[in-house]
């Protein structure tokens, strides 16, 4: 009998309509190496959760929704950081591709096991890449980590010819200005095969979760990002 890898899952959302093309089953994987200021899912930070599942169990669950996702939707692995459980993720991606499903990873491009990165990208149809910041200092402030791992991911990603959607969260007083957006526009020129660029307005809806987990919320004085303004900046980015 085949032995399937098992890993930690936060939850499965059966109808994601904004995380990739078409209708997506979104697998939220547990664990994240970053501690982003704006994170609204702190419950996914820990490496472990109570929800341990084998790759087969996950893929069987995903396949249940075939009538909805087979035509032009698919499966999206998100998190947490899906790359953190690289081998487990790879096995699931392979099984999904075998089942004829479109695969997507929603990643910060960190936390991976280098050895398997090429293969992960081989079985991935679309990478949604979260940009945190565009320079070392900004990145460290935003995520608490060095940018080196992200830079290497982009290098490998560029070799893979994978399709890419770019995403960045826009936060008042941090990156909500035209100057930053123009820099971002220039910065992402080094990433190949970009299909779509999206700016997501920061919101403070995660704050209750921090209270429950007794974690400090660092953007306590920051207001929600104005959606209209964010949209204008997105237009600028796409011009």
């Amino acid at each position: 009998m085949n032995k399937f890898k098992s890993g930690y899952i936060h939850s499965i959302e059966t109808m994601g309509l904004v995380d990739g093309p078409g209708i997506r089953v979104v697998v939220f994987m547990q664990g994240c190496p970053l501690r982003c200021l704006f994170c609204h899912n702190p419950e996914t930070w820990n490496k472990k959760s109570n929800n341990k599942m084998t790759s087969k169990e996950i893929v069987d669950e995903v396949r249940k929704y075939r009538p909805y996702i087979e035509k032009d939707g698919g499966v999206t692995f998100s998190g947490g950081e899906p790359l953190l459980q690289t081998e487990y993720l790879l096995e699931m991606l392979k099984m999904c591709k075998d089942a004829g499903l479109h695969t997507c990873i929603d990643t910060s491009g960190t936390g991976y096991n280098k050895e398997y990165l090429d293969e992960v990208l081989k079985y991935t149809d679309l990478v949604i890449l979260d940009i945190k910041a565009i320079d070392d200092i900004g990145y460290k402030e935003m995520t608490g980590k060095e940018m080196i791992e992200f830079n290497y991911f982009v290098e490998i990603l560029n070799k893979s010819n994978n399709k890419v959607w770019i995403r960045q969260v826009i936060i008042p007083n941090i990156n909500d200005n035209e100057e930053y957006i123009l820099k971002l526009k220039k910065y992402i020129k080094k990433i190949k095969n970009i299909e779509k660029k999206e700016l997501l307005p920061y919101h403070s809806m995660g704050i209750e979760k921090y209270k429950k987990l007794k974690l400090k919320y660092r953007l306590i004085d920051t207001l929600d990002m104005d959606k209209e303004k964010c949209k204008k900046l997105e237009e600028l980015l796409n011009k």
Partner: protein
Amino acid sequence: MNEWVGFKGTKWQKDIDVEDFIVNNYQEYLEDDSFLTGISKKTSKVWNKCKKLLAKEAISGVLDVETFIMSGIDNFEVGYIDRSNEVIVGLQTDAPLKRIVNPYGGYRMVKKSLDAYGFHLEKELEESFKEFRKTHNDGVFDAYTDEIKKARHNHLITGLPDAYGRGRIIGDYRRLALYGADFLIDEKKKDLSKLTEITDVSTIQLREDVKEQIKALELIKKMCSRYGFDVSRPAANAKEAIQWTYFAYLAAIKQNNGAATSIGRNTTFFDIYIERDIASGILTEEEAQELIDQFVIKLRLVRHLRTPEYNELFAGDPTWVTESIGGMLDNEKSLVTKTSYRMLNSLNNIGESAEPNLTVLWSKKLPDNFKKFASKMSIKTHTLQFENDDLMRPIYGNDYAISCCVSALKLGYQTQFFGARINFVKVLLYALNGGRDEITGDLVIEGIDELEGEYLDIDEVLKQFDKVLKKTVKIYVDALNIIHYMHDKYAYESSQMAFLNTNLEYLMAFGLAGISIVTDSFSAMQFGHVRVKRDDRGLTNAFDVEFDYPRYGNNDDRVDAVAKNLVKRVYRELKKHPLYKNAVPTLSLLTITSNVVYGKHTGATPDGRKSGVPFSPGANPSQGADKNGALASLSSVAKIPYKDCCQDGVSNTFSIVPNALGNDEEARIDNLVKILDGYFNSGAHHLNVNVLDKDLLIDAMHNPNKYPNLTIRVSGYAVNFNKLTQEQKEEVISRTFHEQV
């Protein structure tokens, strides 16, 4: 006949066969909605007058009642809204929104309604009616057994149509337009001449019925001639075809007050006439749209006199003027025409409204453009429902229509005996309480063992549950057999039956309320370890569930299989009993808005639900039970078997916030199409769609004046949100709204 010039096909010319006429003459439309036109000046004038009247009616509940004349096909003077601007004419009485007194279903109900709204029937009329005429309601109660009365009184079986018109019959009203009344009378006379073997009661009854149908057709001719139309001959153009069809329907609602009186499936039929007129240059697109819009206005004004209690069950004064749109002819070609678009476009021109109950028959092969347009209108107006044509067409053929909310009928060939529903949750509670009602303490079902012990043992419960179910089904069948015998006898719908075949297939439509609660309760017993608390009468009044257990609505087979088995068990039981007129039993999971009242009269349940809390509507998972996202919820419901089990319909109401459906209008339309495709491809039957922010509904609850026209889909129909009771509003808001994660 002259009126048929240019039409193809011969079979329909010899015998009544509207389907054959359609198949031979309609033009499928594959393009988009860009040809549609706006509201005409005339329509705008007529609709403005209606809006004023509707606003007035909204204040008092009932605008006016005709108290000098009783219901009947040709009993009323002509009535107009704005005569010079009406292109389709005809009202139930001599004035718009003036309601008819229909006492044949039951006099008590009429009296209560009149009292509630401050009207009095003319004294002599009232006295002579009471003295000389027995009603359906009188007949039913003469024949009801004590067991039925007890089950009814304790809300085990509720909503029985034993005091007013049963409804759910759809006359094939197109027949009047295609053939004219004289042709139909001749056909009925031929049928009558063949019914000469008087060997049993049923032939005598049928002879009398057919004679009544012929009289009805004669009366319809007279009624129409008051409006200046000669319907003895076929309709000669689009305007007449729509007018004739509406007249046939109008006769039905002048004579009867059936709970749900649907209009059928007319757009493809009308389109043949419209396209013929446009081709010959006598009709423009604007005029075609004007005809449809004004037809729709007429359908929006249909009213019946109801009691306030009726409204608590079925909120918003619904009449279920259901019009079925779209569907497929066969595996390749759809029945979508330009008029399918024109019908939906009426929502743009005269705004969203609960009636007519627009129902899109969905197939994976429907033209993409039409799928998109229907989705667009659904997102914009939250007034459409969708039903699976690929599931129904193999059973009912390609010329069926939806009656009431979700029930398919082969037009002209079948009719339905409507039968409300069992409170399924009480069946379970009676099993836990030795057949006694958990609220009143009455012994309703005899011969049930008392359960002992602190914890519920699923096997013991099942044993008693089966016994209660068997006896309940027997009582239910008895009640419906009595009701439909008496209805035929005292309140026969001759004006509707005149537009159906003489020899009909009958379906008897049974229903269940509370499937999600019973399912979750059994799952709780199996996985959750349920402790019972009893009051001093020994009746259950609270339950503790000690462990988490799988709940219906999460695409978890362990519990979804329970729901499936439960409905199969009920249907097996139904099939054991002989039915009036050899009807075939069908079963629905549909509550309309009555889920709130059901909950009110039902004690605490083993799934942890507290006493008095509303049921979820139809086949929906219990409020808040579905935690794995929308597709998991939809998938659980899709597992309920339709074919050979719940063929009266499996109703599901789906609410999603706009942002979760997509980032912009185009994405939302695309995604809704995909959801509907996926849902129906997985074998599901019905979906109400509401794309709404919950906050909007909360705001509307507090500030009704800000949203005079806000319409939402509830189980099986659409309703003006303001017309819901406070409890119903709260229940709608408490439902799961699928949001973005």
